[in-house]
């Protein structure tokens, strides 16, 4: 038996090269997208983009302030629905639910997470747009919330499972009721992880376009009523990018840059919270 095979180091080199190649293959598209958006968007980005609404066809300039505002409104509303449902659902699954019911809910959440977002939009359309006889920001927010709920629920559940049972017991043994233990010990211990999950869920819905196409619809003006169509950043990018005007294309690129910037920031923030020191 020999200790050194002549092929060992060759194989090692070959495999290392393969892995390096795979890493480059993964990172290249990201780099290309980023650089291209930066190149196309940066030249079109100006203060006007954040303060002006789109100009009528034919005029140059204008911005997407209404889209930014609309996206913010709908994300906040979606969060108001999606956060409590997702977090409370996760608390039920880990702290209170029996095993069979929990399995059913967990499976449903996974299915819901896997449903294409355009179908979520159709559901909101059927449930809200049709009965209310009109597109609305509210319907847009509901469709976004439907996407948000399973993400928040599953990430929160994973975080709650990481809280050691000994901590819950320590609290209960001091005569603290279960609901207070859940609130003050379990949820408090999992807080940073839950925030991370929520930020990632927001990043996800911030870029969603399909469900807004036939719920919020979008428009070219300032709209503050939740029962009326409202602009959203991804919608405006979509509409402007397919329009036949050079000026609108430039705005769409600027919008894309801003959207990617928001995603990037949210992901960085999520990582920051996720990395905070925790004992346990």
């Amino acid at each position, binding site marked *: 038996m020999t200790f050194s095979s002549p092929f060992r180091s060759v194989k090692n080199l070959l495999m290392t090269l393969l892995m390096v190649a795979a890493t480059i293959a993964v990172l290249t598209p990201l780099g290309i997208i980023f650089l291209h958006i930066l190149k196309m968007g940066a030249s079109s980005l100006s203060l006007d983009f954040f303060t002006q609404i789109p100009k009528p066809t034919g005029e140059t300039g204008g911005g997407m302030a209404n889209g930014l505002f609309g996206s913010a409104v709908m994300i906040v509303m979606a969060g108001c629905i999606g956060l409590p449902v997702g977090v409370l659902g996760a608390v039920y699954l880990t702290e209170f639910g029996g095993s069979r019911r929990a399995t059913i809910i967990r499976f449903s959440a996974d299915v819901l997470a896997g449903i294409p977002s355009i179908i979520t939009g159709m559901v909101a359309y059927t449930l809200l747009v049709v009965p209310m006889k009109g597109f609305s920001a509210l319907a847009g927010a509901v469709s976004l919330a439907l996407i948000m709920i399973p993400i928040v629920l599953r990430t929160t559940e994973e975080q709650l499972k990481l809280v050691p049972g000994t901590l819950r017991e*320590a*609290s*209960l*043994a*001091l*005569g*603290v009721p279960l609901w207070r233990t859940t609130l*003050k010990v379990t949820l408090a211990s999992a807080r940073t992880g839950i925030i991370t999950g929520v930020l990632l869920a927001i990043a996800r819905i911030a870029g969603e376009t399909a469900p807004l196409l036939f719920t919020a619809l979008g428009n070219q003006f300032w709209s503050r009523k939740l029962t009326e169509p409202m602009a959203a950043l991804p919608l405006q990018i979509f509409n402007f990018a397919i329009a036949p005007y050079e000026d609108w294309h430039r705005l769409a690129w600027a919008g894309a840059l801003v959207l990617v910037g928001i995603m990037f920031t949210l992901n960085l923030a999520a990582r920051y919270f996720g990395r905070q020191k925790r*004992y346990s």
Partner: protein
Amino acid sequence: MQTKVQLDNLNVHFGKTHAVKGVSLEFPANSVTAIIGPSGCGKSTVLRSLNRMHDLVPAARVTGRILLDNDDIYERGVDPVGIRRRIGMVFQKPNPFPAMSIHDNVLAGYKLLGRLNRTTADEIVESSLKRVALWDEVKDRLKTNAMELSGGQQQRLCIARTIAVQPEVILMDEPCSALDPIATLKIEELIDELKEQYTVIIVTHNMQQAARVSDYTAFFYMGEMVECGTTKMIFTTPEQRQTEDYITGRFG
């Protein structure tokens, strides 16, 4: 000797497993009672039924009676939360709250309930930490995180947290099994002092420890209580063959 806690035909089932089989036992007030026996004999299960910790396990079923000052703690309508305030518990592994300072950990029982009285808070912290002989070691760093203490200090902190809410009975589930011999010695000295004010019930798989700290000992085997009596009698002149075999190290 007055009886503080009494088990009357206690049975605990987990699903189809019959973990504790018809145990009747009395725990005298202001004394230390040790429950010994090999792993899986049901000693921890008995201890956890004393403060109704099994309520949280859906598959667990507790039958029989447990009397605390002659009142059945499993009677319909009894609030387990109230029982847990009267019967405190110290766990196998030190489990201070990781997000809290030493100071806040002592007060955890009040803080988590939202019943903290600011004027007496510092007094409670000082007296509780003094009782567990931790005060001199930590008095200059009460605001630092509790996880920075050593394992033995953490366990004494957990005991301080338990006595801070003034229970009547303290349950200890192998409180020294994660500690080194010196830390163990300190906890054992502490247990001896605690019995002046509290009724202490300690589960241990360390027979020397049971012999050192307890006044009474109950020997469990396979979910049944084989024998109980004063520690001296159990360790010198046990009536049952099984007890003698276990104590002399022939099995377990």
